[in-house]
């Protein structure tokens, strides 16, 4: 299988401040490499400020990258003009975080879902296609005649998914799409995503802050910290044995209802430093419980410790047993 999406040393920096004010550089995405194969799900996990949302938007070129390459089906799209990019938008779509902001409140659902069809001059009866799409995400065809505010958060996310599906893309970036939903609704949406992935042969870039959600949907997980990927591994391997100290802390921070009374979350020093003044050396070293001298001075590379397992930590060691084969899915 070839890679559907390949990102090489991608950087997105923002200039803060302007005329007469102190110019500072916000390094939202700062050297990311990743690969996503078709019909697979790669989860990008990180806390606020890790750059995961900017990464998703840069890959779709909603934000312009500062450096690096984005290969979609082998074609470098990182420097294409917006006009040249337009036909390629059929291959990649996005679903956003806020179900209440991602649908134009003044347009009926039918027009919202049909918009990609007429923008790209898709032939055929758009009305019929829209009702099919709505039906596919579990909404009645009559939903097309209503306005977004008449729907609940979960239903709106379904509408947004239907819009993303309209052009039959190969890749959908899912940006925190479940973070505003209640747990029972969230589970239902995740189940729907799995069904759609098989049916439409989709690859997902699943961006989330929630490790527990990620576990149920993704084949591989990349953990981001301050603009970089610090660990990437097959999902089960990562959950069984996280190798980067940050991943370990992240995993241990989630209270597990099944293990009542035994939760003892690790203590990190202070709050995360901001992407505006990045620490030298390893980005995690000021908070890392294991930090040593080398971590203060040298930024670790993302090393392949086992097949399919990459970690950016000087101290991490390969797991004693070979990890699961890299391309195999959720265990």
């Amino acid at each position, binding site marked *: 299988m070839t890679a559907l999406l390949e990102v090489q040393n991608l950087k997105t920096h923002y200039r803060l401040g302007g005329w007469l004010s102190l110019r500072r550089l916000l390094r939202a995405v700062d050297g990311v490499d990743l690969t996503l194969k078709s019909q697979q799900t790669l989860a990008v996990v990180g806390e606020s400020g890790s750059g995961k949302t900017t990464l998703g938007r840069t890959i779709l070129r909603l934000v312009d990258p500062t450096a690096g390459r984005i290969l979609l089906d082998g074609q470098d799209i990182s420097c294409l003009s*917006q006009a040249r990019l337009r036909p390629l938008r059929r291959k990649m779509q996005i679903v956003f975080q806020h179900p209440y902001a991602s649908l*134009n409140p003044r347009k009926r659902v039918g027009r919202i879902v049909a918009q*990609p069809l007429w923008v*790209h001059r898709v032939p055929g009866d758009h009305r019929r296609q829209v009702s099919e799409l709505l039906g596919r995400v579990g909404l009645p065809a009559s939903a097309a005649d209503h306005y977004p505010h008449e729907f609940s958060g979960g239903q709106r996310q379904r509408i947004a998914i239907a819009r993303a599906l309209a052009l039959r893309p190969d890749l959908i970036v899912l940006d925190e799409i479940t973070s505003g939903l209640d747990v029972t609704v969230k589970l239902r949406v995740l189940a729907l995503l799995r069904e759609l992935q098989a049916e439409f042969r989709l690859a997902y870039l699943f961006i989330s802050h929630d490790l527990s959600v990620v576990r149920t949907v993704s084949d591989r997980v990349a953990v981001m910290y301050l603009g970089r990927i610090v660990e990437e591994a097959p999902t089960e391997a990562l959950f069984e044995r996280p190798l980067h100290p940050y991943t370990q802390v992240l995993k241990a921070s989630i209270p597990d209802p099944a293990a009542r009374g035994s939760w003892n979350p690790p203590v990190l020093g202070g709050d995360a430093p901001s992407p505006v003044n990045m620490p030298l050396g390893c980005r995690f070293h000021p908070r890392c419980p294991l930090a040593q001298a080398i971590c203060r001075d040298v930024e670790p590379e993302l090393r392949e410790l086992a097949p399919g397992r990459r970690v950016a930590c000087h101290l991490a060691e390969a797991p004693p047993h070979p990890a699961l084969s890299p391309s195999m899915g959720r265990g």
Partner: protein
Amino acid sequence: MNPKLLGGVVIGLLLCLAAVLAPWLTPHDPNRQDLSAIRQPPVWMGGAWDHPLGTDSLGRDLLSRLLWSARVAVMVALGATVCAAVIGTPVGLVSGYFRGRLDTVLMRVVDVWMSIPAVLLAIALMAVLGVGLLKVILAIVLVDWTRFARVIRGEVLALREREFVEASRAIGLGPFRIMAEELLPNLVPLLIVLASLEMAIAVGVEALLSFVGLGVEAAVPSWGSMIAEGRGYLLVGWWGMTLPMLALVVTVVGFNLLGEGLRERLDPRLRTDAAR
């Protein structure tokens, strides 16, 4: 319909009715002078039914003049508002959507424009252009397009960050289609409210300009010039000044009520105060 909106609509309809029907409603030619019947009081003060609201110091029928003035008010209100909106809205849209240098330049221009007091600018323009209805409208438009530009820009700045705008970019819509299809429909309530308030302002400015003799032509009756004329004989005939003032106040308040009523109905969270 809330009471404000109701009041605004009723006053607005009456005004339009008066403006359209003025030639048929008026008992006299508004400019016909009758020096034998000057400063006659309204009927309830002992005047004759021939001049229901009395006459001015040249013996012209006040009711006729008031009704004809309504035409000027309506024309100025509609003309100036439409033109100001047509100029200001695209500027605000483009400025807010593209941001960056273009926005900086456009907004500096607006700032500069607004640092000359509106009244002074209007008077200066009229002094330069000369009197006349179309010129009044032009002067008001030149002064007030900034109001639309500023408020629309502010709203666009907020709207463009909403995810549905990003979603249409992800679909592949170009910037101008995004403005037309995604942003503009969301600006409609704001525009409607702004336009109603602008009509109130335009009527006020026209009256002001005519009051100082820099408004419509002398032959055209206008509340502003009637107020100025009535002021001269205030102590012998208070109605000469008070009646046009009343008409003006009712009109302006009516348009304001319309604007506020519409805001409450369409979107109570709209911030339009900065537009005044």
